[in-house]
C-alpha cells in the first residue's frame, strides 16, 4: 500500500459567523488548504466532508457549489466530536486503498452558544436535573471525579490545564481567544459543574479546517514533498463494553484502544512523540488523556500538569494551539484543525508557539457515544 501524505492543510481563525452559512464557512478552509499546496478543486478526486449540525443537509455537495462542482464523489460524515477526524480518515483510507491519489477532507461547524448534551428527550417528563445530569460539563466532571477518586486529583490540578491552554492560545492568532487566565481566575470563575468552572469548558465557536491528502507518487509528481506531512497512523475505535458505560460515557477505554493500535501502526511509542493535540473538551478530560495516551503511568497525570511537562517548553507539550478550551471547539472541524496544528509544527511554521525540533506529533479526538480518532503524523 502507498503511504499517504498531507500536502495542503489550513484552518480559518475560529470565531462566530452568524451571517454566513455552513457551506460558506467550510468552503473558506477548503480553498485555503488548496492554496496551501497550490492545487485547485479540479485536482481533487473526492471530497470527504465532516459536519454534525446539518448532518442530513449534504454539506459536502453544498461546499462544492461554493468552490467548484466538478462532479467528484462526496461522502458526508457525522461522528459526534470525532466528525472531522473521521472525514480525514476516510480520505486517508481512500488514498491508502489506491482508489484515488489526491483527495480533499473538510470539517466545518456552526455552533450556538450554551450547554450541550442533556437528557431531556423521549416521552413523559424531562429527566435533566431529576435523574442526574446529561449535560456535557457534568458528564466530563463525573469522569474527572472518577480520576480524583482513584488518584486524589484536585480541583486545582484540573484548573491548571485551563491556565496552560489559555496561555498557549495567546501565541496562536487563529484561536478564538488570546487571553491569559491565572489560576485564581480559573478557579473563581462561575462554577458550571464541579469541578469544571466556565473557564474549564471548551468554547462553542464556528470554524472550519481542511486538508489535501495525496499518495506518495502523486506528491512527488506534483513536487509537494518539501512541506508534506506523512500520516504514520490513522486509527478509530468505538467504546468497548465497560461496567458503568450505560450511565457514565467512557472516554478512557476507547482512547486507550485507539492509542495502542496507533502506536503499533506507526511502529513507535508515546516516548517518540514531540507534541500532542488532544481532546480537552473540558479541563477534566485532558488529565484523563495524559494517561490514556501513555504520556505517563496511571495516576501520574496530576504530577504532569503540576511540573509543567505538558506545557510549551516541557517534555511533551500538549495543546499548544490553546486547545478546545481556548482555540475553540467547532465540533465537526476540530478533528482536522488539530491535524493542521500538528502539521504546522512539523513544517516548522508555527511561529511563536513552535515546538522546537518537532518531528512526530499525535492528534486525538473523542466523540461521546463514543468514537475516538487518533492520527500520528511525521515530517516527510
Amino acid at each position, binding site marked *: 500500500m502507498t503511504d499517504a501524505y498531507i500536502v495542503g492543510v489550513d484552518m480559518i481563525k475560529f470565531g462566530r459567523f452568524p451571517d454566513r452559512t455552513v457551506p460558506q464557512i467550510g468552503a473558506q478552509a477548503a480553498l485555503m488548504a488548496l492554496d496551501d499546496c497550490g492545487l485547485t478543486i479540479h485536482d481533487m478526486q473526492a471530497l470527504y466532508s465532516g459536519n454534525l449540525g446539518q448532518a442530513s443537509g449534504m454539506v459536502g455537495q453544498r461546499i462544492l457549489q461554493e468552490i467548484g462542482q466538478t462532479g467528484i464523489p462526496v461522502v458526508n460524515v457525522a461522528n459526534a466530536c470525532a466528525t472531522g477526524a473521521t472525514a480525514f480518515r476516510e480520505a486517508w483510507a481512500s488514498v491508502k486503498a489506491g482508489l484515488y491519489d489526491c483527495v480533499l477532507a473538510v470539517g466545518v461547524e456552526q455552533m450556538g452558544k450554551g*450547554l450541550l448534551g*442533556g437528557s*431531556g428527550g423521549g*416521552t*413523559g*417528563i*424531562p*429527566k*435533566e*436535573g*431529576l*435523574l*442526574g*445530569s446529561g*449535560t456535557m*460539563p*457534568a458528564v466530563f*466532571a*463525573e*469522569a474527572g*471525579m*472518577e480520576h480524583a*477518586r482513584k488518584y486524589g486529583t484536585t*480541583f486545582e490540578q484540573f484548573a491548571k490545564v485551563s491556565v496552560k491552554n489559555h496561555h498557549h492560545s495567546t501565541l496562536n492568532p487563529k484561536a478564538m481567544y488570546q487571553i491569559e487566565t491565572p489560576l485564581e481566575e480559573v478557579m473563581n470563575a*462561575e*462554577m*458550571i*459543574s*464541579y*469541578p*469544571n468552572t466556565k473557564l474549564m469548558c471548551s468554547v462553542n465557536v464556528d470554524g472550519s479546517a481542511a486538508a489535501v491528502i495525496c499518495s506518495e507518487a502523486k506528491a512527488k509528481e506534483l513536487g509537494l514533498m518539501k512541506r508534506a506531512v506523512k500520516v504514520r497512523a490513522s486509527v478509530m475505535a468505538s467504546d468497548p*463494553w465497560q*461496567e*458503568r458505560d*450505560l*450511565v*457514565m460515557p467512557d472516554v478512557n477505554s476507547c482512547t486507550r484502544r485507539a492509542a495502542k493500535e496507533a502506536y503499533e501502526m506507526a511502529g513507535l511509542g508515546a516516548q517518540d512523540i514531540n507534541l500532542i493535540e488532544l481532546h480537552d473538551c473540558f479541563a477534566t478530560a485532558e488529565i484523563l488523556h495524559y494517561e490514556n495516551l501513555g504520556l505517563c503511568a496511571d495516576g501520574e497525570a496530576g504530577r504532569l500538569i503540576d511540573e509543567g511537562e505538558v506545557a510549551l517548553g516541557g517534555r511533551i507539550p500538549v495543546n499548544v494551539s490553546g486547545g478546545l478550551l481556548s482555540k475553540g471547539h467547532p465540533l465537526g472541524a476540530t478533528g482536522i484543525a488539530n491535524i493542521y496544528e500538528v502539521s504546522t509544527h512539523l513544517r516548522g511554521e508555527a511561529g511563536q508557539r513552535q515546538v522546537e525540533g518537532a518531528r512526530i506529533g499525535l492528534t486525538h479526538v473523542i466523540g461521546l457515544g463514543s468514537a475516538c480518532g487518533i492520527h500520528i503524523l511525521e515530517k516527510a
Partner: protein
Amino acid sequence: MSTQPLPAVPFLKIPEDADPYLEGHRCDSCGATYLGERDVCSKCGARDQMSKVKLPNSGKLYSFSIVYRSFPGIEVPYVSAIVDLDDGTAIKGNLIGVEPDPAKIEFDMPVEVVFDDALGRKDREGNAYMAYFFQPKAG
C-alpha cells in the same frame, strides 16, 4: 389522566400492591446487568439470555458532579451521582439529603435508593410521575 403516578423511566416498576423497585435485566450467560430491557447482551453478545431481576435499594457513591448550570427551569445546584448498587449495577441519579459541597460528599459513601414524586414535573396530559433518588444511609 392516570390517578396513580407514572414511572419516570421504564425500569422503575410501581406494583399496585407492593413497594416500587428498580428492574434490571441480567445476562444468564455472562452476568452483566442492564437497566431497561434488551434482547442481546452487549458485553458477551449472547442472545435471548436475559432475565428480569429486582435491583437492590442499596449501594455506594462511585462518582459525582455538583451541577450549578443547567437548562432553563431546572433548579440548581444539585448533585448528579453515579452509584454502584450492591449487586454491581451502575445507575445515575440525583443525590439528595446532602449539602451540595464537595467537602460534604465522600466517595463510597453508602446510599439508599428512595422513591418519590418527580419534583412536581408533569407531562402534557397532567400526569404525575414517580422518580428514584439516592440519599445517604442513616448512621
